[in-house]
C-alpha cells in the first residue's frame, strides 16, 4: 500500500437528466481527488447533487461527461457488466433504508455480494460470520431483518458492504433513519473501519455526524462550494494518520 495513494479522481464531471425544457443538471463539472484511507463527508441541501455524486462515485450511474479514475482504472466508459464487477469488487454500499432482503437471514444478506462475485464460493458463511463479528452481530446471524432493530439492520448492511473487502465504503445518510444512539453506534463502526484503512465517503445532513470525518465537501446546485478539513482531519494530518493508513 503506497502512501498518499489517490483512489478516486474525478475531473470536470457532469450529470444531466432529461432533455429540453425538463433538463436537470444534477452535477455541473465537479473535480475531486480522494486519497486512500480518507474519511469524507458530503453535505449540502437537498437537490444539491450529493446523491447523484455518490452514485457516480459508486459506479451505479455513468457521468454525462468528464473523467473518473477509480483505483487507477478509468470507469467513465465502462459498460454495465464491467461496472457491476467494479461495484462488486471495489465498493461497499450502505443505504439510508438499509435495503436488506426481507425474509432472508442476516447471514444470507451478508453473503449476497459474494454470490455475484467471481471469487471462490467456498466458506461464504464463514466469511459472513467473521464480518458479522466485526459489527458485533454474530449472535444474530440467523435472525431475519424484521427481527432486528434499525441499528442492527444497518450493521448487517455494513457487514454486507464489507464482505468483499472493498477499498471504498459509500454511505448515503447511513444514520438518517436511526435514533441518535444507534446512529452513534454506526459512526463508531465507521470510525474504526477508517482506522483500519478503509476509505469512507458518506452523505449526511447532520453536522455532528460530519465531525467524525476528516474532510467535509459542501455541495450546492451541483457544484462544490467548500472543501474543508475537520478538526479530526487536521489532527490526522499532523499525526500522519492519513499517510500511514494502517495505524490502529
Amino acid at each position: 500500500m503506497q502512501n498518499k495513494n489517490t483512489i478516486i479522481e474525478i475531473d470536470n464531471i457532469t450529470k444531466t437528466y432529461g432533455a429540453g425544457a425538463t433538463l436537470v443538471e444534477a452535477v455541473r463539472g465537479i473535480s475531486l481527488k480522494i486519497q486512500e484511507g480518507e474519511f469524507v463527508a458530503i453535505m449540502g441541501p437537498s437537490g444539491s447533487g450529493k446523491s447523484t455524486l455518490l452514485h457516480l462515485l459508486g459506479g451505479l450511474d455513468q457521468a454525462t461527461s468528464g473523467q473518473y479514475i477509480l483505483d487507477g482504472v478509468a470507469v467513465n466508459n465502462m459498460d454495465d457488466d464491467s461496472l457491476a464487477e467494479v461495484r462488486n469488487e471495489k465498493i461497499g454500499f450502505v443505504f439510508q433504508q438499509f435495503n436488506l432482503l426481507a425474509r432472508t437471514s442476516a447471514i444470507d444478506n451478508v453473503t449476497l455480494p459474494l454470490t455475484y462475485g467471481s471469487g471462490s464460493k467456498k466458506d461464504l458463511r464463514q466469511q459472513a460470520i467473521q464480518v458479522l463479528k466485526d459489527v458485533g452481530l454474530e449472535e444474530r446471524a440467523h435472525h431475519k431483518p424484521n427481527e432486528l432493530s434499525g441499528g442492527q439492520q444497518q450493521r448487517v448492511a455494513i457487514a454486507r458492504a464489507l464482505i468483499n473487502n472493498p477499498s471504498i465504503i459509500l454511505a448515503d445518510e447511513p444514520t438518517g433513519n436511526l435514533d441518535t444512539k444507534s446512529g452513534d453506534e454506526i459512526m463508531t463502526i465507521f470510525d474504526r473501519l477508517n482506522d483500519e484503512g478503509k476509505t469512507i465517503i458518506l452523505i449526511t445532513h447532520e453536522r455532528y455526524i460530519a465531525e467524525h470525518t476528516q474532510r467535509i465537501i459542501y455541495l450546492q446546485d451541483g457544484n462544490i462550494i467548500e472543501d474543508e478539513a475537520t478538526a479530526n482531519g487536521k489532527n490526522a494530518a499532523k499525526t500522519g494518520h492519513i499517510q500511514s493508513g494502517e495505524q490502529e
Partner: protein
Amino acid sequence: MNVIQNIKTALKGIAVNKMRSGLTMLGIMIGVGAVIAMVSIGSGASSSVTSRIQSLGSNLLMVMPGMGGNQAGARQAMGTATTLTNEDAQAVEDEVPTVKFVSPQFSSSTQVVYSNQNINTQITGVTSEYEEVHNFHVEFGQFISSGDETGQSRVAVLGQNAVADLFESGEDPISKTIKIKNIPFKVVGVMELKGEAAMQSPDDSIFIPLSTAQNRVFGEDRLQSIYVQVKNEEEMDLASDQIEALLLNRHNIGDSSEADFRIMNQADILSTVTEVTSTLSLLLGGIAAISLIVGGIGVMNIMLVSVTERTREIGLRKAVGAKSKDILGQFLIESLVLSLIGGILGLILGIIGSLILSMVGGWPFVVTISSVLLATIFSAAIGIFFGIYPARRASRLNPIEALRYE
C-alpha cells in the same frame, strides 16, 4: 449467482405467496393434466377397441334399429327405435344365403334379487346363437338352448360380475333361483370372464332366453340389435347388401337413404369409436392448449407483479454487483420453477384422472413416457416463454431508480 441458489430463492418466493402461486399453477396444472388424460384416453380406448374387434372376429355384421337416413340423427337414437322385430331376424336367417348365424338380442336394466342381495343390472335376452356369434362362452353349466327359447323357460346364465355381486364367494350359483323383476329364474350357467369393454361389460349381464325376456319380463316385441355372422369373410359386402334389400322390402321402404335401420360391420364400429375417441382427444387437446396459454399468461402476470414488488431488491442486487444476466436468470428460474411445479402437479392430476377414466370406460390404463416427457417439457417451455418478458424487464431496471422505488 448459481442455479441452485436461484432455485432456492424461487422456492422461497413461491412459499411466501402460497395462494397466489397456487392459483397461478392451477392453469398449468389443468393444461398438463388434460394433455396426459388426452394421450391416455386416445391410446387406451383404441387399444381396447382393437382387441375387442380381434376377439369378435371380422365376419360380423350388426343390424341396429335407426330413425332413417340422417346418420347423425340415427346414431343418437340408435337402439331406441322399435323397427326391428323377431320376424326380421328370422327372415335374415332363412332368406339370406350368405348368413351363417343370426343372434338377435334385447336387453334392459332391471332389479335382480338373490337371498338378501339386491342389484340393478343388465338383463340380456338372447338365443342359443349368442355364444357362437359373440365368441363368448359358458364356463360352468350350460348356455341357453333353443329349447329354452321356444319354451320361454325361466333359466338364466350369469356373467362373472353378476355372480360376484349376487353370490357370496365360494357359493355355487348353478341351480340356485334368482328373482328378476320378481320372477323366479333358475341359474343354469356362468359365463367366462370377458374382461374390459368400452361401454357396458358383458360380465355384468344376466342372459335369459330372448322370448322369455320379451314376453315374460319386459313385455316388448322389438329387438335392440341383430348380430349376423357371415359364412365367408369375402362375402361381407354381399351379405350386407342382401340383408339391406331384404329388410327394406320387409319394411316397405323404397329408398335406401330412408332406411329405418343401420347395418354396420366391425370396420364401421371401429371407425365410429375412433371418431368418438379422437373427438374426445381433440376436445381435451383444446382444453389443454387453451389452459396452457391462459396458465402461461397467468405465470407472466404473476411474474410482472413479482418484479414490480421486488424492484428495490433488484436495485440492491445490482448495486452489490449483480449483472443483467444474473437478474434475468433469477426471474427466469422463478417462472420456470413455478410452471414446472404446476406441470408436475398436473402430471399427477392427469394420471389420476386417466386412471379413473380408464376404469369407467373399461379400457386399459396407459400412461406413456413420451406423454409424461411432453407434459414436463411443455410446462417448462411455458415457464421460459412467458417468463422472458418479465425477467428482461427486471434485468433492464436502472439500479438507482430501482433503489428509489417505493
